[in-house]
């Protein structure tokens, strides 16, 4: 079954991708951080390497993942996302840490 997932990107990445507001992506199969980021990078290739490292696939240190009031940053990227995210009721939020000028 395909799911319509909402993703909220930091402002600089929205500018880089040329989008406004949230982006909506269709995902077939398990809805996880990994599958959502795969879909983000497939739709917006200019974001490859900006959220996770090309080689290690590690989340960039100053970025965090939140959804439904939960901090998912340190969960497995293969863990299922909360049901409201799968249903498109809540976005997966990619947030830049507040640090420095």
């Amino acid at each position: 079954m395909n799911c319509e997932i909402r993703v909220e990107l930091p402002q600089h990445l929205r500018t880089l991708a040329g989008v406004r507001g949230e982006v909506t992506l269709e995902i077939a199969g398990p809805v996880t951080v990994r599958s959502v980021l795969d879909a983000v990078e497939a739709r917006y290739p200019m974001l490859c390497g900006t959220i996770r490292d090309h080689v290690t696939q590690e989340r960039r240190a100053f970025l965090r993942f939140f959804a439904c009031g939960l901090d998912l940053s340190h969960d497995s990227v293969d863990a299922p996302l909360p049901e409201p995210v799968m249903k498109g009721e809540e976005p997966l939020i990619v947030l830049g840490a507040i640090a420095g000028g």
Partner: protein
Amino acid sequence: MSKVRVLVGTKKGAFVLTSDGKREKWEVSGPHFAGWEIYHMKGSPVNPERLYASQTSGWFGQVVQRSDDGGKTWETVGNKFAYDGVPGTHQWYDGTPHPWEFKRVWHFEPSLTEAETVYAGAEDAALFVSKDGGQNWEELSGLRGHGSGPHWAPGAGGMCLHTIILDPKDAKRMYIAISAAGAFRTDDGGATWKPINRGLRSEHIPDPTAEVGHCVHHIAMHPSRPGVLFMQKHWDVMRSDDAGDTWREVSGNLPTDFGFAIDVHAHEPETIYVVPIKSDGEHFPPEGKLRVYRSRSGGNEWEALTKGLPQKDCYVNVLRDAMAVDTLDKCGVYFGTTGGQVYASSDCGDSWMPIVRDLPAVFSVEVQTLR
């Protein structure tokens, strides 16, 4: 009618300044990539409308931007800089081993002859090349494979490969410099490299005349004499007349031999420019006077150029890639400051004027002379 295009990378975006050959009135375009650090921008000598910009962020890593219309529009190209093989370790600040990690591109150097080929100097120090206009990158790993790589250590600004010089008379010869490892040369197109630091002396390292470990800030070359190199080192201005095999100091009467930027006049290969900076640790012009120093004899004898530059209460820095020359007659000289001014001289440095001011801190300045 000639035209000049100045490419300015800053802490918070990129700016493109244009003027006709008189260089009196300037149009400012930007900020491009507002809010991002732009470490460097440079145009292709083969196709001057082809520009590359290194867009970096502590949050989002490296993005490579390319323009094919002289900076009016930009597109992202490849940003996958993967070290060849098992990267291994280099020295960390405390002397312990530290894994090699790509952080950003400090310098792009487009090929002198191949329109789609461009080199990138990276932090952590490595040289990458793209042969498809920046879409795909591969490491020229013979540089790190030279054997001294595990002993390289970062300078205050990181362990960056910041200088790439292509020999216009020998396509196989190239020079690079790394802070704080030193200078290296290849004579076989990047397959193998040798350190070229003989004659450099650095009192702050255990062996002041070591083969590697010298803090080289920048190197400059005149295209008509590619075997003659000029270097601004952490301390000392140096000169080599044998393609870097040996160096001698030419600091002469400079008020301080510390600085970052160095460049060569477009038509006079013995005329060179530096901006002396007070150090260690202070990194601003001595006495608060912003002075470019010019030598017309390839070093040793220097004259202060002050007309149009602030001569009191000026505490900016001029970074290593923030000086460039155009090829008009008279030669134009340009430099940018950490205070956000870009100064230009249209008379070889005799007089100066700010062509834009109040930009974010300037990281890099490159000039294109368009016919």
